[in-house]
């Protein structure tokens, strides 16, 4: 997880130059981050990184501090202590450059329900300085890729929950970020919609070399080849490749490893890999 990796070249990769990161730059690097709400400490000495073209699962129960961490990475909250870098750009010192490389899907829906699917995408493109013609072309592409081309003119409020999530992912990719953050992106979706979205995101990692940080409390969303960060009550309890985390916890699977590490009741979801 902490080593730099060249992105995988996929067969269906779009025409986007793939960065090599020969200098070892991480897609996301977090070091010494602390955050408090008044006297309550929400994050305590957080250190981890996400390599380009990797899928890192941030596993934690509700209240672990996942959304706070996302708010810090996306600069919704100011950093009280520590450093956060996106491809070497410090989020505090060079927020524009850092955010340009970042796509994000928040836990609550952030689409404008009164606008159409395409209008939501065009608005997002404008916020990234992408001209109207280019934005239309990109919108058409992403909608085709996520299977919503026939709903381009529909009001967002008429979409299903799964379609909205797919649209949010498509929107997060519209400005061609190199790092994608997804905060509990499958919450409230049925089993098939969850599987579709997870598969789509893994495809992005493989084909486009995007680094992904996937926050979840569901074990069955973690695959054997993923990197894993276990966050509990604001602290990282374990991190590394899934197999190593399981082995170091002396467990047989992620579910058991998580319970051993936290002493907590098992979160909802299916058994782990």
């Amino acid at each position, binding site marked *: 997880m902490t080593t730099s990796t*060249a992105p995988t*070249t996929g067969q269906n990769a779009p*025409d*986007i*130059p*793939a*960065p*090599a*990161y020969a*200098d070892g*730059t991480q897609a996301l690097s977090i070091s010494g981050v602390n955050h408090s*709400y008044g006297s309550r400490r*929400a994050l305590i000495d957080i250190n981890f990184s996400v390599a380009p073209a990797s899928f890192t699962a941030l596993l934690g129960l*509700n209240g*672990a*501090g*996942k*959304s*706070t961490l996302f*708010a810090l990475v*996306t*600069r*919704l*909250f*100011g*950093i009280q202590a520590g450093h956060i870098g996106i*491809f*070497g*750009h410090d989020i*505090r010192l*060079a927020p*524009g*450059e*850092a*955010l*340009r490389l*970042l796509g*994000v899907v*928040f*836990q*609550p*829906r*952030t*689409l*404008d329900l*009164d*606008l159409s699917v395409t*209008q939501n995408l*065009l*608005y*997002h493109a*404008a*916020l*990234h*300085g*992408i*001209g*109207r013609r280019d934005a239309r072309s990109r919108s058409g592409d992403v909608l085709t890729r996520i299977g919503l081309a026939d709903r381009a003119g529909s009001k967002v409020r008429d979409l299903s929950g799964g379609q909205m999530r797919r649209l949010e992912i498509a929107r997060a990719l519209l400005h061609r970020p*190199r790092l994608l953050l997804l*905060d509990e992106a499958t919450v409230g979706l049925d089993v098939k919609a969850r599987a579709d979205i997870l598969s789509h995101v893994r495809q992005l990692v493989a084909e486009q070399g995007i680094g992904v940080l996937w926050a979840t409390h569901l074990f069955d969303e973690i695959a054997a080849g993923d990197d894993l960060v276990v966050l509990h009550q604001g602290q990282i309890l374990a991190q590394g490749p899934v197999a190593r985390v399981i082995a170091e916890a002396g467990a047989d699977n992620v579910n058991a490893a998580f319970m051993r590490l936290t002493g907590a009741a098992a979160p909802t979801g299916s058994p782990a890999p």
Partner: protein
Amino acid sequence: MSSTTVRPVERGFSFAEYLTCLNGIVWREALRFLHQRERFVSALVRPLVWLFIFAAGFRQVLGISIIPPYETYILYEVYIAPGLMAMIQLFNGMQSSLSMVYDREMGNMRTLLVSPLPRGYLLFCKLLAGTAVSLLQVYAFLLIAWFWDIAPPPTGYLTVLPALVLSGLMLGALGMLISSGIKQLENFAGVMNFVIFPMFFASSALYPLWRVREGSPLLYYVCLFNPFTHAVELIRFALYGQINWISLLVVGGCAAVFMLGAIYAYDPSRGLVRRGPAGGET
């Protein structure tokens, strides 16, 4: 797929990117406004009720002597028209701030705030977009008022435009500043009562300040220090091709102060950092 080495080079943003962002925010605000037809109608009905009913009733009660910028006796309806124009902008500014609170509660505010362009610029674009919407409403009001024989000099429709832009920015920035301090939508109604009504009534919108001074010297000073009074006077003078320099300074100064306050409040390291995560998130 070709391969390039990425270094943390800061390339900044081009003028075209800034302009595209502004266009996008104004376009979205306009779309939302068009989708909310009731908002447009209510924005017009409110001042028209004041004009057609209140002003008609008070015409005989409140005499208006010759005061600048007027060069002759005028009807009461003519006197309150600039105040009603400013009232449209005041309500629009508060409506925009309400929409920001709503956006923040619903989550779509994050779309704006995670844009890579400078946050101060994004808020300024949002402000300009709200001002543009208020201009549409004011000119629609002026058109209807023209049929009611409230007709400033033809050039007045043009000369009032910069004044409307400035007063729209000031009132929009005030709304934005207020929205930064409101955590929940349901708290908004109370704030409106403490902002809109005192600002509107303690101003020169409905009666000239010399009349206020006759009735209550204290209220006169309250009106004098009310920035809304200066927005009204700036519009009133501009409508007749004149500039009220004091009002211009006050409105410009207040617009800058309110805007800087809003940028400060929305700065992640200052304003939002004091707040906890949204409901249900951690």
